């Protein structure tokens, strides 16, 4: 496959980009923020996403979805990033779908059609500490009655307080098991916190939560592989969203360089700024290619995907971070004001950088995968 969008993908982009830009530009985020909205996203917007078929893009056709790939989901995520659109797309339509589709079985049959129809919002309850360490899951699932009992604490659960179902990763006797924990399960408390980018993420406490035996996603003790699929999809998706964030910030900045005058010149005429902008452009292009490569390998089910996913999350993390930092700096004082959008890009970048492993985590993974 060539590493550019084919005609169908280009068409998808041509319909998604204006849709997101019109329905959910940065002012949409501001409105939710200023209203101290308690959901974290707009249900109306999600209904519009549903009309366009977006929530079920990755859901297999047999379950009512469009059966598309990560390359296509990435197109949507980039626009979400560029417009800082609050949305459950990444956790629900990418992460959860990857896990459920990989696992198959009862839970896939129950939730995939609901995701495709826009009815279900799904949260991913993986992390437990302040840093992403999926190999240190301490939440336990012990057999009790006809099912299991979940105990532990989860953090950084996006949409955790409103999700219809949360995918919970827990330790069982022989490994990791994933559970589909319904919203009304007893013993769950989700305590939402407002984050720097005005999104909401919950601290979730699981205190003797009882779930049925058929809440298991896939097989007991065999959740490792499903978790890997979830992580690979979500990390790649976050990387695609970061490319959008970085691109949005860069575009704003380059535009500003062509408008702002100091010392009797447009500041974009100063070579000191030109070189930094050009360097940033290069980093963003490389990040974009890397994310596409990871998407391609994931879509092909290739063995090399795991390495490239970490490369993509790290590279996109570095590039987007450079874009927002340069963005604020090159805007000068005005970039520090709330009124200008560039600061919002910096905030969203910070949150996405942390999500599912930061740059350092993934650089470390790359070293390990290369045997050092």
């Amino acid at each position: 496959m060539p590493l550019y969008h084919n005609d169908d993908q280009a068409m998808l982009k041509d319909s998604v980009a204006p849709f997101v830009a019109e329905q959910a530009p940065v002012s949409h985020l501001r409105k939710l923020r200023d209203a101290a909205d308690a959901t974290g996203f707009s249900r109306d917007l999600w209904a519009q996403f549903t009309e366009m078929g977006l929530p079920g893009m990755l859901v297999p056709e047999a379950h009512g979805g469009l059966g598309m790939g990560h390359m296509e989901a990435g197109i949507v995520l980039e626009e979400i990033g560029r417009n800082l659109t609050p949305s459950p797309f990444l956790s629900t339509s990418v992460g959860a779908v990857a896990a459920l589709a990989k696992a198959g079985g009862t839970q896939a049959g129950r939730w995939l059609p609901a995701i495709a129809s826009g009815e279900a919002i799904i949260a991913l309850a993986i992390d437990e500490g302040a840093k992403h360490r999926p190999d240190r899951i301490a939440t336990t699932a012990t057999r009790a009655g006809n099912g299991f009992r979940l105990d532990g604490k989860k953090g950084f659960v996006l949409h955790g307080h409103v999700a219809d179902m949360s995918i919970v990763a827990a330790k069982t006797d022989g490994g990791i098991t994933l559970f589909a924990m319904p919203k009304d399960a007893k013993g769950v408390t989700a305590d939402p916190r407002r984050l720097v980018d005005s999104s909401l993420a919950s601290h979730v406490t699981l205190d003797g939560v009882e779930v049925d035996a058929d809440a298991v996603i896939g097989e007991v003790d065999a959740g490792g592989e499903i978790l890997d699929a979830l992580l690979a999809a979500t990390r790649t998706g976050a990387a695609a969203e970061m490319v959008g964030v970085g691109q949005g910030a860069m575009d704003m900045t380059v535009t500003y360089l062509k408008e702002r005058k100091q010392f009797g010149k447009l500041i974009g005429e100063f070579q000191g700024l030109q070189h930094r902008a050009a360097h940033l452009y290069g980093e963003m292009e490389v990040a974009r290619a890397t994310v596409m490569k990871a998407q391609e390998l994931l879509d092909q089910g290739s063995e090399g995907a795991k390495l490239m996913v970490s490369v993509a999350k790290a590279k996109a993390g570095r590039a987007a971070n450079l874009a927002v930092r340069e963005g604020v700096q090159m805007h000068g004082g005005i970039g520090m004001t709330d009124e200008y959008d560039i600061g919002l890009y910096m905030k969203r970048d910070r949150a996405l950088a942390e999500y599912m492993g930061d740059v350092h985590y993934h650089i470390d993974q790359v070293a390990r995968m290369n045997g050092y």
Partner: protein
Amino acid sequence: MSELDAFRTEVREWLEANCPAEMREPIRDEDDVCWGGRNFKFKNAAQKAWLDACVAKGYTVPDWPKPYGGAGLTPEQTKILKQEMKRIKARSPLDSFGIWMLGPALLQFGTEEQKVHYLNPIARGEIRWCQGYSEPGSGSDLVSLQTFGEDKGDHWVVNGSKIWTSYADKADWIFCLVRTDKANKYQGITFMLFDMESKGVTTKPILLISGNSPFCETFFDDVEVPKTQFVGEINRGWDVAKYLLGHEREMISGGGAGGDMVSIGGAFAKAFGKNAAGELDDPILRAEMAAFDVDVFAYRAMGERFMDMWKTGRAHPASSNMMKYVGTELNKRRHELVMSGGGSEALEWDSEETKGGARARGWLRTKANSIEGGTSEVMLNVIAKRILDLPGA
């Protein structure tokens, strides 16, 4: 899709039958590289056999049309051929400025007669070319060049000097920028081709900090160049030169700019040892190497995307400048890490064990990567102006 699969199978079988085992080893010395040309001495029979096989098939220049010595492959087929050659670690059958630079310019600007006349020997590796662009006073500001060709009716008489001419002393012919109109800066340069054995051409080597000297000063003293030996239009050589520089950057970026494009950390595990967790036992160098690896794998993806887009006309014309900039800076970083990783051994300059200080010399050589073919600063200028459309001259 199945047609391409069939092509892949065919290529695999052909490579299996035609690529000698010795040509599937990494390049170790300068003479492992096959440059071709009138005076080239093959290192061994395998090197010659591999070149001959590729020439017969058109695989030295697979995407050139058949009448000019190519195989007439589509971009997709060319990509497959490259992938398959890479898979068996095949060496390039022929490295040549003729292929990377002059060829594409001739394909674009040459007459039919010129194409037939010049491209076939390039494809067969019979004529080795060098590039006469830079002058002592004209480097980044190339268009200020002064070497002058005086109009003598059926020929020019060329006087002046060039600098940094890579392999001028080994080249058979030169493609050269010569001022033919002093009144017109941009539209006063002609793109000429001539034999380095012409009367009045002399070369003098330039010793580099690496201790090597494949570069020359080249002097032209009343050199007669027939009026038929120009490409494009007279006085419009700048268009050809610019086009060619794009290909030079494509070559630099698509080929070696990012270095070997493989993980670097594993290579040093022996020197440092590993800790109980199986990690390289210098946490800071490990982190730097791993961060570098991320950039290498990322650049490799960029290289693939760039080639896919370039070959199908989707790339921004100035994107080769970005590739050149990113790739060459990356290669310099690789060699800084190679030196750190190698420790005191990497400092050795002439010992046999270090193959004559290969690492140290290689490290020093890479410092030119961000100078030759246009400096990094010039690349950034071009990106700022032509891609980002930033204001100013």
